[in-house]
């Protein structure tokens, strides 16, 4: 008898976390994963921000109480993280948009590090601003 059964292969499985597996991957994968994490963080912040602004509708007293809390030094690191997220997502976004239409594809790594340098400078300036203003 000829055995004709096909190999019983496993179905190609879905790996929902694949984009987060950046160990041993190259800079483009790190950039993408970070971009997505920053984006998700910013969405959460946007929701939080809209919620916080609703305090404005409750009148001056509630709002001013909140502002007093927001001014506490404990919030400062959170502000810096927020700024870092915005700068990263925004500047890396410029790169994604540019290479996405075929501009600078071969130079995408150099582009990335240049933009990150700009992000770092702006982050420092911003932090200085948070502290002094």
């Amino acid at each position, binding site marked *: 008898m000829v055995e004709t059964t096909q190999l019983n292969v496993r179905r190609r499985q*879905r790996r*929902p976390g694949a*984009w987060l597996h950046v160990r041993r991957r190259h800079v483009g994968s790190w950039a993408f994963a970070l971009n*997505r994490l920053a*984006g*998700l963080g*910013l*969405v959460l912040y*946007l*929701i939080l921000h*809209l919620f916080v*602004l*609703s305090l*404005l*509708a409750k*009148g*001056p007293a509630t*709002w*001013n109480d909140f*502002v007093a809390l927001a*001014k506490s030094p404990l919030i400062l690191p959170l502000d810096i993280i927020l700024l870092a997220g*915005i700068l990263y997502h*925004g500047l890396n*976004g*410029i790169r*994604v*948009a540019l290479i*996405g*239409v075929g501009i600078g594809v071969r130079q995408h790594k150099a582009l990335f590090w240049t933009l990150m340098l700009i992000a770092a400078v702006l982050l420092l300036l911003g932090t200085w*601003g948070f502290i002094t*203003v």
Partner: protein
Amino acid sequence: MNTKRTGSWAGTLWILQALSGLLLILLLGTHMIVNHFVVEGGLRTYEDVVSYLSNPIVVVWEILFLIVVTFHAALGVRSILFDLGPKKTARTVINWGITVLGLLAVGYGVWLTFQIIG
């Protein structure tokens, strides 16, 4: 070359996502600089905010910003969900879900603005 094809939503959405992202860099840049640095000492007290919003250009600008940021965020979330390979019905649910949530967010923001202006 024959260019009669109508193209797909996918491409249009990608281009809109890129454009809205670039627009956000401008809008968010001004939003942050104005809110924190141009207004002396930053927008702090309730009175600060109300007087800031008394300028109609500011109102239009902030609402535009809200629309663009919500659009960009909604498309971003959609892209993350679509990457998980949802089936057709799930895709429809996602599309409607983010549309409704986006509109709610914008509607809420506009309502809030006018609440404050009084």
